[in-house]
């Protein structure tokens, strides 16, 4: 139990996917222009990461390791993740059209996002069990959602600011991310 809590907290704030590990930057800068979009993106990403790490850690622990074919993990994971996202999208579209309208457009974006692939690779690199993988993915997803919401709140205000012409848009967003990351460095050593 203690171990699970450690994994969770370290994934949310200390080893934050975006600010400490630089994963999922494309969506982090692409979707963080509006608060509502950022929230939907965060939820969709968390959902996909949970599903992906459950299925990939089952495959890793019960198929790849017993048959000693761990080196195939990259090829297998990317196929599993890509088809998983497709299936999730079809299920959501058929069952709940409102949820689909809210999350649907973000789901395909996530397939090629490195966070999902990364969480699967981290789970197998750390030899996490299925339960630990789920907690790890949940932590990573919540960390991602937290940071993208903070970022979009700041960027909504930033649009009104009078920044130098050449810094407008992406460069100044990087500087904001630098300050956020600096704040998150302060959490080092909690666990």
């Amino acid at each position: 139990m203690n171990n699970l809590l450690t994994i969770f907290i370290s994934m949310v704030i200390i080893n934050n996917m975006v600010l400490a590990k630089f994963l999922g930057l494309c969506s982090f800068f692409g979707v963080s222009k509006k608060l509502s979009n950022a929230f939907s993106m965060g939820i969709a990403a968390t959902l996909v990461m949970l599903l992906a790490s459950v299925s990939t850690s089952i495959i890793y622990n019960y198929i790849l390791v017993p048959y000693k074919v761990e080196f195939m993990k990259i090829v297998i994971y990317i196929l599993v993740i890509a088809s998983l996202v497709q299936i999730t999208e079809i299920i959501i579209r058929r069952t709940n059209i409102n949820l689909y309208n809210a999350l649907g457009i973000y789901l395909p974006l996530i397939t090629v996002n490195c966070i999902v692939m990364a969480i699967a690779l981290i789970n197998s690199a750390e030899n996490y069990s299925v339960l630990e993988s789920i907690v790890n993915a949940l932590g990573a997803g919540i960390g991602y959602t937290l940071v993208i919401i903070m970022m979009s709140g700041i960027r909504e205000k930033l649009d009104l600011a009078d920044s130098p012409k050449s810094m407008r848009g992406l460069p100044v967003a990087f500087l904001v991310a630098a300050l956020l990351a600096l704040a998150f460095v302060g959490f080092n050593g909690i666990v």
Partner: protein
Amino acid sequence: MNDHKNRSNSKQQQSFHPQEQHVKLQKQHIKQQKQHVEQQVKDNKKSGSGFWKELVRGIIISNPVFILILGLCPVLAITTSITNALGMGAGVIFVLLCSNILISSIRKATPTMVRIPVFIVVIATFVTILNLTFEAYVPALYKSLGIYLALVVVNCIILGRAEAFASKNSVLLSIADAVGIGIGFTIAVLIISFIRELMGTGGLQIFGRQIFNIPGLSAHPLIFFISPPGAFLIIGIVMGLLRLVGVMKNE
């Protein structure tokens, strides 16, 4: 209600094939690339000296990092030292070259419907080869690159080039494109890692050999620059400067 149904129906038709949807993901990035490529293809037909033109274009005009803003994750994550940047650059060039060659040579045999899954499997295979090679011959570098070497597989640059260039052009031109884009990527990561290593450690080291030290700085290095916030700061400033001198366009 009817309206809802209609809309969802048309959506279903639009995105009935999973492959089709997959294409959507990369549309944004690829759109930019396509414009570049189409222009370039026209020019090539006029001049005939396609190979060198493609190569130079990849390095400067459509530099993947600074101009197209693709594949940022490794750019920030592995630029803590020049050695890492060189390793990552070599890895990206290898995967890009092999996947471009293979994809462009099978482009006529690949059905359009399943092209994206085919590309993904081809790329994943070469990334696996790259990982195993690095693990066997340069274990120290493999360890310091960590999961980012495996994450080359989800790098937008590689799938983007496969879709926008290699699936439409001859093998020779695809080689030029891969080498150009690969070198462009390597130069970009080298610039950023040079600044970060210089400020963060006060000297330069390539594959364990000390090149030079800055006297005062190496005793008290600015560790901030090799920590994560430093990466965001440096790339933000470099991008701002490139826009100021007009290499990149303002938003």
